[in-house]
């Protein structure tokens, strides 16, 4: 009986490589695309059309780009344009194609201690948060959202690092955990709209600032450099890139809604606005 169990276990283990050999690509992407449910909507359509299975590793943009640099994914699909351009410039992959956008929203507690609800000017809102020393949760994880948040502070002329350990709280985690923290502490936080819409544990958090052009959030896609990483599945990965920027993929993106609200706006065929 012992021997039969061992044999069965070994067979189970040996079958793993076989599983890994099905036609598939690995995408390093961001928590926002995964946790907003976009991939859950998009990928089955792509797989149905092409027979290629897609495996998404959802990380912060910085980490996702690092996974691409190490050759552990076939393509990256992220949202931090300056970091993406560095990725391309250093030869880690590319070319970078823009795919879609949505926007960031500034979230805050109902009590709104900084008094910024309804504000349209993000820079002014951040200055008031800093002035009120109202709790603000930062991702602090080199993600696209974190990079965007730091740019916004810069535009506001405020160095939030001064508030570190007091009102400025860097959690070093993904969007969801950061939102959980903000909800628990009644803090302000910058979030991408997709994750916010899909987020369930809101407590009394709500959107306080939105619609500012500075809150624009662009997503781009890049093939990992196959000259550096010979195992990159160029044909299949390129197929995905071609699809996502073509009308079929763009329409699929536009078709994803939560409660009747469209989360992402395809813009591969129009020139990308410069934020």
């Amino acid at each position, binding site marked *: 009986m012992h021997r039969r169990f061992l044999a069965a276990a070994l067979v189970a283990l040996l079958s793993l490589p076989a599983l890994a050999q099905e036609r598939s690509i690995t995408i390093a992407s961001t928590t926002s695309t995964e946790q907003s449910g976009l991939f859950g909507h998009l990928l089955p359509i792509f797989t149905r059309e092409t027979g290629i299975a897609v*495996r998404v590793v959802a990380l912060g943009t910085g980490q996702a780009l690092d996974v691409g640099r190490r050759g552990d994914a076939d393509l990256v699909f992220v949202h931090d344009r300056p970091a993406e351009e560095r990725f391309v410039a250093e030869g880690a992959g590319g070319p970078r194609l823009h795919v879609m956008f949505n926007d960031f929203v500034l979230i805050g507690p109902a009590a709104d201690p900084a008094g910024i609800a309804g504000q349209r000017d993000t820079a002014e809102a951040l200055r008031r948060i800093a002035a009120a020393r109202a709790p603000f949760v930062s991702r602090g994880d080199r993600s696209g959202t974190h990079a965007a948040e730091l740019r916004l502070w810069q535009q506001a002329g405020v160095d939030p690092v001064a508030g570190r350990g007091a009102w400025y709280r860097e959690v070093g985690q993904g969007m969801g955990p950061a939102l959980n923290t903000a909800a628990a502490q009644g803090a302000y936080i910058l979030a991408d709209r997709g994750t916010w819409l899909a987020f369930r544990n809101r407590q009394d958090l709500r959107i306080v600032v939105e619609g500012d052009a500075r809150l624009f959030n662009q997503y781009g896609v890049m093939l990992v450099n196959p000259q550096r990483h010979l*195992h990159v599945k160029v044909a299949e990965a390129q197929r995905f890139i071609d699809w996502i920027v073509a009308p079929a993929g763009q329409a699929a993106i536009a078709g994803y809604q939560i409660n009747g609200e469209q989360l992402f706006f395809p813009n591969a065929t129009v020139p990308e606005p410069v934020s």
Partner: protein
Amino acid sequence: MNDLSAAFAAAAGLLAGGDPAVLGIIGLSLRVSLSAVVIAALVGLPLGALLAVARFPGRGALIVTLNALMGLPPVVCGLLVYLLLSRSGPLGSLGLLFTPGAMIAAQAVLIAPILAALTRQVLESYWEEYAEQLRSFGAGPWRAIPTLLWDGRFALLTVLLAGFGRASAEVGAVMIVGGNIEGFTRVMTTAIALETSKGDLPLALALGMVLMAIVLGVNAAAQTLRGAATRWAG
């Protein structure tokens, strides 16, 4: 309180509903953790038995190291295996990163020291009892290893359960080396972490309850087996 009762309802729904996605996650959790236990046992049990019977320079240091490694944080273990299995790492050509194989490897690394250290503790007391008789039979320490492993098989079942418990409960290692890929490397613990991230706390808790129910079931089965066996072997 509301969340808790919602979680109980959701857990019951998950278990009763037979949602194929959830069943897939449960199945993968079991496959990964049980495989890791098998592999870690192939290394840890003989190593523990060797440490129980053999006296050699460095043995004490090795035992202390194993005992310390029992507390190895899963995240550190995951990072280590990640760097080994990454395409840019020494074992990158295996293409195991972000596959169940990598998760099995990481959990096996995580629990092998636990199995070895606990096996040594169990078998050392057996060896104290057996040593003189086995030497009288002409069996030295090397020959004693399979004898002790066989005679300790029911006690070692508890050791394997400890390893399984640790493996199935950890999230840090499988998250890093598996990538929590939906339908491919998502297991119970990473699914719980994901649902927590999405703020769906009742669903996360419900998944946790399902995990506990599975671990409980495995333990109960093993306990029944062990109870019967102990009555048998005395």
